[in-house]
């Protein structure tokens, strides 16, 4: 290489070295069109991304906030986006009151769970028990986990490998229907199956 090209090249390398990595962060709209929020911080400053396609870029010049075009997103992130796993999906099951028997509708829902698993690569599920607002937290946590474990055994009996099933007890933290405290509400006594 000629000597006269070396000067600018070295300067560029030094500048590049000081600037550390070149980052690009782009916020996307969610599947339902809502937009989340990402806070980007680095030695050059910080910025909040809170609109669709808002972008933060760092380079030698500092931190810039602008927008990314859809074609840029496709060019830079197309392969990563194509590799995104399928979205998890949830099914809700109810019991005949006071029994371990699913309602007729829930029996159909179990078939949909099996069909959904068959469609997915390396499918797994989490069986999540929920209670109503009656009773204290520790009791509801235990009760909801017990219910989830029962459903897990039913699913294992139907042929799903136990290795693919996690159980969780959410207790009264996630009611389907908002009620006052201590209210017994059958719609909240349910088991959710999250397929991922």
């Amino acid at each position, binding site marked *: 290489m000629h000597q006269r090209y070396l000067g600018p090249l070295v300067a560029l390398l030094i500048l590049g070295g000081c600037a550390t990595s*070149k*980052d*690009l*962060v*782009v916020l996307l709209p969610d599947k339902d069109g809502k937009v*989340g929020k990402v806070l980007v911080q680095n030695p050059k400053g910080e910025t909040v991304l809170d609109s669709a396609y808002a972008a933060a870029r760092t380079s030698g010049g500092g931190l810039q906030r602008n927008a990314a075009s859809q074609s840029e997103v496709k060019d*830079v992130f197309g392969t990563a986006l194509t590799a995104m796993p399928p979205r998890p999906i949830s099914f809700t099951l109810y019991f005949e009151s006071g029994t371990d028997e699913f309602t007729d509708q829930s029996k159909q829902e179990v078939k949909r769970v099996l069909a959904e698993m068959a469609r997915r690569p*390396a499918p797994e599920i989490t069986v999540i028990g929920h209670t109503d607002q009656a009773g204290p937290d520790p009791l509801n946590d235990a009760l909801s986990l017990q219910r989830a474990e029962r459903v897990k055994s039913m699913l294992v009996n139907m042929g799903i490998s136990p290795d693919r099933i996690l159980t969780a007890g959410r207790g009264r933290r996630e009611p389907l229907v908002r009620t006052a405290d201590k209210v017994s509400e059958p719609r909240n006594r349910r088991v959710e199956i999250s397929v991922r």
Partner: protein
Amino acid sequence: MQTTRLIGVRRFVLACALGFAPIAAWATDIAQFKVAKGAVYLERGGKRFPAYVGTHLQATDTVVTGADGSAGITFIDNSLLSIGPNSVLAIERYAFNSTTHEGVFDAMLTRGTLSVVSGKIAKQSPDAMKIRTPSSILGVRGTEFLVRTGD
């Protein structure tokens, strides 16, 4: 709580002592490959293994893709991550309590491209999920975003 998955050095050492089996389902599994195309590797304890659809991940694993590689990973809190070619992504810390949804999720993208859909951890606690690059820290309030880092 039995469902809390906090992975420490002890379990990691145990996994090595028992003879590491990448496909076996350990209690410390936090995620699984759902997509693996081209060259995709998992680094654990200084060793590198090829990763396939169905390979489980543990906290402190690193995922590496080659020039033709890409990978998609689903975590037990329903966080989704995918990386494009020539990428290096280290899971630095992961814990998830499936009862309270409290947890922590720290990952580092050293090189390449990353796509994220945050899950239950970030939804429960806005400061619980952090993605770093060599020069930036991203605080994840939700939900879908993309990161590229490089020289």
